[in-house]
C-alpha cells in the first residue's frame, strides 16, 4: 500500500496567542510539536504498512522549521517525508491548504490511502482531511476510531459519533481522518531518531506540484479571520466534602456512584 499521512507542525502549548493585527497564530518563541492527532494518523499508517507492506509518506505544508516534525515522523516509522514550502503557500486557509496537499498527493501518485488526524489543535477546524477528499474526489471516512480489514480495494472503518459509532466499508483510494482511540502511537527509538537525522526531506514548491498560484495563499482562501475571541470561561463546579474521614469517603463514593463513575 502507498499511504500518505498528512502532518502539521503546531505550537506545543495550550496557551495559543493570536497576533491582533494579522489574526494569525503567534509561533515565535513557542515550542513546535507534531499535531497530536497526526501522531495517531502516522501510527495507523505505519501499522498498515507493517501488516500489508508498502510505504508511508509523511506530507506537510509549512515553514522550513516543519522539517523537524517530518524528521520525527521518519523516526516514528515513515519511509520518506515531503514538505511543501514556498511563500506562495503562506496565509492559506483550510481550503487552499487542502488544495495544495491534494496536488502533492496527485504528484506522489498511485496513493491507496490518505490518513489525517481529525483536526489540528491550533486551528481546530477538522476541515483539511475532508478538503483533500473533496479536491481529489475521493471517498472519505472521518473520525475513525478503528480500522478493520483492509484489502487492495476497500477498508473497513469504524467511525465515532457523539451518539455511538458506525462501521462502514470505504472504497480505496480514500481519505480517513482518525481520532485518538484508534491506536497508541509509538515513541521513536534512538535508532529511528538517528536515521531520521540523516534522512533527506524532499521540499516541493507550487511549481513542483503544478498548483495554480491563484488557488494558494490568501488569494486562494475564500475565508478570512475577521475577529478572534477567547472562549467563555468554563464554570467550575467544585464540591467540597467535609466531615470525618469515613463520612467523607461515604459521600465521595455516593457522588461518584450517582455520576456512574464507579
Amino acid at each position: 500500500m502507498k499511504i500518505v499521512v498528512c502532518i502539521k507542525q503546531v505550537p506545543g502549548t495550550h496557551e495559543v496567542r493570536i497576533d491582533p493585527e494579522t489574526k494569525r497564530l503567534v509561533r515565535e518563541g513557542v515550542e513546535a510539536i507534531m499535531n497530536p492527532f497526526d501522531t495517531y494518523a502516522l501510527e495507523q499508517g505505519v501499522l498498515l504498512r507493517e501488516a500489508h507492506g508498502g510505504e508511508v509518506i509523511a506530507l506537510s505544508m509549512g515553514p522550513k522549521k516543519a522539517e523537524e516534525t517530518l524528521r520525527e515522523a521518519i523516526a516514528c516509522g515513515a519511509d520518506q517525508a515531503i514538505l511543501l514550502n514556498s511563500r506562495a503557500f503562506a496565509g492559506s486557509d483550510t481550503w487552499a491548504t487542502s488544495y495544495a496537499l491534494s496536488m502533492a498527493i496527485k504528484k506522489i501518485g498511485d496513493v491507496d490511502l490518505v490518513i489525517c488526524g481529525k483536526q489540528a489543535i491550533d486551528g481546530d477546524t477538522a476541515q483539511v482531511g475532508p478538503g483533500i477528499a473533496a479536491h481529489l474526489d475521493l471517498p472519505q471516512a472521518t473520525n475513525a476510531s478503528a480500522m478493520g480489514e483492509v484489502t487492495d480495494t476497500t477498508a473497513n472503518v469504524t467511525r465515532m459519533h457523539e451518539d455511538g459509532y458506525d462501521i462502514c466499508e470505504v472504497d480505496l483510494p480514500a481519505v480517513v481522518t482518525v481520532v485518538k482511540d484508534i491506536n497508541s502511537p509509538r515513541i521513536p527509538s534512538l535508532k529511528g531518531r538517528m536515521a531520521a537525522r540523516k534522512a533527506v526531506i524532499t521540499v516541493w514548491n507550487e511549481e513542483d506540484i503544478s498548483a495554480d498560484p491563484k488557488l494558494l495563499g490568501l488569494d486562494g482562501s475564500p475565508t478570512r479571520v475577521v475577529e478572534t475571541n477567547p472562549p467563555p470561561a468554563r464554570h467550575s463546579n467544585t464540591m467540597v466534602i467535609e466531615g470525618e474521614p469515613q463520612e467523607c469517603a461515604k459521600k465521595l463514593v455516593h457522588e461518584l456512584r450517582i455520576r456512574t463513575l464507579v
Partner: protein
Amino acid sequence: MQHHIANKIYHVEVLPPKQNSEKLDEDLERFDMKYRMVLDAGYCVCITDNSMGHLAFQGTELIEELDLPVDSDQIMIHLNTFHSKEDFDGILTTCIDRGVQHLLVVSGDGNERLPRLEPEEIGYPEVTVVTSVELLKYIEREYPGKFNLGVAFNPYEPEQHEFEKLQRKVDAGAKYIITQPLIGRNEIVDKMKGRFKLPVVVEAWMSKKLHLLSECVGYEIDENIEYDPIAALQNLHEIYPDCGVYLALLGYKTQFPLLKDIWV
C-alpha cells in the same frame, strides 16, 4: 546486592538523553562519558526509565546504539509499567542478550504519550492496574532466574500502607530494596530494615538544591537552606554502614572524583 555493599560499590544514577533533546549528539556523548566513568571506577551504573514522566531513551537502546560495554554486576536498569507489552519484552530480552541482571522494578510516572501495560496482557486480569508487584510476578514467571530484581521503598508514604506494599513486592520476588532520597536518619527506614531481611540501598541526594525534594518528602523545604551533599553522603554512611548507597543527581566534575575517598 549484598556483594555490592560488601565491596563498597556505589550505585550511580545516569540519566539518559531526553527524547526531545535538541543537542542529541552532545547528550549522547555525555551519557557515554558518564557511563564509562562509573563503570571504570568499579561502581554500578543505574539507568532510569522515563523518570518523572519525561520521555527519554531506554537504557537498553543506548547500550546497543552506543555499543557500551556491559559488566553484569555493574549495571542496573530501571523498568516501569509504562510500556507496551512488545517493548517491555523487548527490553527484557535485550537485557538478557547483553548480560544485564539487575533491574529496579517500579510503577513509574506516566506521560500521556506512554502506553501502560494492561493487567490482561501480562496475565493478571484480577487487578485493575499493573503495578511493580505485577511486573515482578511477570518477570519471575516469564524469565525465571534471569534477573536480580529490586524495588523502591518510600518512607514518606503512610507507613502501614508502604510496608504492606513492600511485603507484596517481596512476596512477588524482590531481592533488594532501594529507598527514596534520605536526609539523615529515617525511622521508617530503620523499621523497614528490621522487618525485611533484604539488602537495602539508601538514596543520597547529591544536588545542592535540597528544596527540589519537597514534593518527594511531602513537606516544604526552604529554597535557601544550605545543603552540603558530600557531608550528607558521609553522614548516611555513618548512619547506615550496612547499606549500599544510590547517588542521585551526582555532579561528575566536582563530586565524582571525591567518591573514592568517602566510602573506604
